[in-house]
């Protein structure tokens, strides 16, 4: 079935392929040898394909393909070298894949494992989850995949944002960015197609200055969501994240870890702006099954003490964990020297809640970072004059920029958090890097003012700033520090592995480097979800494996990982998650498939990492943890190497 072509661009070449047939049609207008735009797409079903017009010159191209009426999901492939886009049918083997399952599949299948992460052969893949864009609660996650410049291995980082919903509603199951452009560009995607604009004039700026003007330029926050890199990504720093706006337009939601912002920068891609007006939304194979599943999920989230309205996360944010993990003796302090921080209460969720109340005169409950979230855990922090300072101070950020640097001043922590958002940085990696730099004598532990100056160095991209923007491992080498708490080059997050052995196993074996979200074993160990476990018991092998599988599946659904609190405790919530997926896809998955699919994802990632050169020697916690006892429990990391190797061995 042929689509109708309307070509308004002079000097472009359009190749149109229908349903696998090579029905190439060249349309040439204009003069000379213009930049070539190739719009290749397939129309599996009747529909109207529209190439929309736009300016074409040496710097700027526009082209597009009409998505309206497209009943099936597709891939959108973007070649930054030629600045062309093409739509593809989804290969049958990827039929039910989305989110992390799909990003890791494409990276595994298409990216040479030994390529340089910042070179032309790496790819950056965005994929919304299976239920993203539907009425399912707390499911607006976008997975971003690539080869990580921080770890040298495969990476999936995800964020909650309306951007994910818009991409899903446009029927784009995966956005694959490849090649490299000169300069920086904006990619705009809507139901008329995709187009490029130069973005050079937007570089070198704070993201809170850039986002409002970008919303103005592309209509408004009601119409578009924006994905961007900051200065750190523009300079291809390994601590650079990829930023998405929250529901209020704040540039504050990050696919933060692993330096994917640097990959995006290496592609010459500054913004991806999505407008979903006119999109038909998600097709659901079995509405009844889907509705049953999403209701079970909603009930579980609304019922559970952690996730319910005005529950722990809604009232105090994730930073409620500061006091709890500190009581457990597992809050890494002063670059992982101790497990308790004297100033913990000053930077905890309670202090944020009460501080906001004192400064604004109101009890501020937290907001949803993305549309459709029931948990609503995203907080704000206000200055003494009552104006908003920053959002969101997550537990990990309060810890990384606070306790781990010995800083107990919440206003200073807030400023550091804000600056990371402004410059496009991963708060965890930067907090970890500052702590290693403090260890190396660059600043004193507890000197928040100096820490703020150092983050500004990163924002100015000075030589010192670029060293710090390269992450904790590079800082350790640069400043001659042996106590560098990283795995595979990625700094550890906010749970001490010597005190909580299960999270240590997760750090050791994760395909992502030290990553708490790779397998949230913190939940049963400290939070008590799904059973009581002694955090100091080293028998953690099976726990670590199963949680990594389950996590990989949740990262595939498009749900926020925080649903784990509810669905691990409430069996019907877990069933609901599986039924929602079955409803969308028309599959007949059971709980067993959760483990099967999780294993499949991990196997793909492990295979990529093996081909990239990783060996069991990379699955190790840093040596100092084996000989430095951690106060207050005075424990060392004592899980045997054979136990670690047996998890995925």
């Amino acid at each position: 079935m042929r689509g109708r072509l309307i070509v308004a661009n002079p000097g472009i070449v359009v190749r149109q392929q229908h349903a696998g047939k090579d029905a190439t049609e060249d349309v040439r207008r204009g003069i000379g040898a213009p930049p070539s735009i190739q719009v290749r797409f397939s129309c599996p079903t009747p529909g109207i394909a529209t190439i929309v017009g736009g300016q074409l010159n040496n710097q700027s191209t526009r082209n597009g393909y009409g998505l309206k009426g497209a009943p099936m999901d597709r891939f959108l492939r973007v070649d930054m070298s030629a600045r062309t886009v093409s739509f593809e049918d989804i290969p049958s083997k990827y039929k039910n894949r989305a989110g992390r399952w799909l990003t890791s599949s494409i990276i595994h299948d298409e990216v040479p494992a030994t390529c340089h992460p910042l070179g032309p052969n790496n790819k950056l893949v965005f994929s919304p989850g299976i239920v993203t864009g539907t009425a399912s609660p707390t499911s607006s996650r976008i997975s971003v995949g690539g080869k990580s410049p921080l770890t040298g291995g495969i990476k999936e980082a995800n964020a909650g944002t309306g951007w994910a919903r818009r991409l899903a509603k446009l029927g784009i199951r995966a956005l694959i960015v490849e090649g490299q452009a000169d300069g920086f560009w904006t990619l705009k995607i809507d139901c008329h197609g995709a187009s490029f604009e130069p973005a050079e004039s937007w570089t070198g700026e704070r993201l809170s200055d850039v986002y409002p003007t970008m919303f103005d330029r592309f209509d408004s926050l009601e119409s578009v969501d924006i994905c961007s890199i900051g200065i750190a990504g523009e300079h291809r720093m390994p601590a650079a994240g990829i930023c998405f706006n929250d529901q209020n337009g704040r540039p504050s939601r990050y696919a933060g870890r692993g330096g994917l912002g640097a990959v995006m920068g290496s592609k010459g891609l500054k913004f991806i702006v999505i407008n979903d007006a006119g999109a038909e939304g998600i097709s659901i194979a079995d509405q009844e099954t889907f509705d049953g599943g999403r209701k079970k999920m909603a009930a579980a989230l609304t019922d559970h003490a952690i996730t319910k309205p005005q529950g722990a996360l809604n009232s105090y944010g994730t930073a409620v964990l500061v006091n709890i993990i500190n009581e457990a003796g597992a809050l890494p302090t002063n670059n992982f020297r101790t497990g308790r921080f004297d100033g913990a209460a000053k930077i905890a969720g309670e202090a944020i809640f009460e501080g906001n109340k004192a400064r604004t005169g109101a009890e501020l409950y937290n907001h949803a970072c993305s549309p459709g979230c029931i948990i609503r855990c995203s907080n704000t922090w206000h200055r003494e004059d009552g104006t908003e300072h920053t959002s969101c101070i997550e537990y990990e950020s309060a810890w990384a920029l606070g306790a781990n640097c010995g800083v107990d001043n919440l206003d200073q922590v807030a400023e550091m958090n804000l600056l990371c958002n402004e410059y496009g940085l991963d708060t965890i990696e930067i907090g970890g890097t500052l702590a290693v730099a403090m260890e190396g004598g660059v600043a004193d532990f507890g000197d928040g003012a100096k820490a703020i100056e150092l983050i500004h160095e990163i924002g100015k991209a000075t030589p010192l700033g670029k060293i710090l923007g390269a992450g904790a491992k590079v800082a350790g080498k640069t400043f001659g520090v042996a106590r560098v708490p990283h795995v595979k080059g990625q700094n550890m997050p906010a749970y001490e592995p010597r005190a909580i052995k299960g999270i240590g196993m997760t750090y050791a074996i994760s395909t992502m480097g030290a990553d708490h979200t790779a397998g949230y074993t913190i939940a049963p160990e400290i939070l008590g979800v799904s059973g009581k476990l002694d955090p100091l018991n080293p028998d953690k092998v099976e726990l670590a494996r199963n949680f990594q599988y389950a996590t990989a599946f949740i990262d595939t659904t498009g749900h926020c990982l925080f649903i784990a609190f509810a669905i691990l405790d409430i069996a019907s919530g877990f069933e609901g998650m599986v039924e929602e997926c079955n409803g969308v896809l028309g599959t007949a998955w059971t709980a067993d498939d959760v483990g099967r699919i999780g294993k499949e994802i991990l196997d793909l990632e492990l295979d990529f990492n093996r081909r990239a050169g990783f060996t069991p020697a990379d699955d190790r916690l840093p040596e100092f943890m084996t000989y430095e006892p951690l106060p207050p429990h005075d424990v060392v990391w004592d899980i045997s190497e054979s136990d670690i190797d047996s998890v995925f061995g």
Partner: protein
Amino acid sequence: MIDIHLYGKLRRFARDQDPTSPSIVAVTWESGDTIRSIVLRLGIPLTDLGSNMFLNGRYATLDATVQDGDRLGLFPDDMQLLYKWYFSPSQGSAAAKSRQGSPDSTSPIGGGTKSEG
């Protein structure tokens, strides 16, 4: 003596209730003390108590034995990150009670993937 670190609304049982600093109550240890006996002695209603309690930094239950010199950390029910039915099944939700196995059993996820190890 036993130092009790109180959080959230439990801070009202301490003299210093500033949420940006520890709210610590010192209690004289008595032979046979458990967390429950100390909580009752302080006048904290059990219904105010969350299921997050840490004895010397270790996750504990109400019946844990307390020694002289111990540190106890208590979080209230609206900051709890645990279900009460871990300690008292009768207070648990219907969904929680219908869950297979004992509170110490593995999760649905653990059950689903065990055989693949």
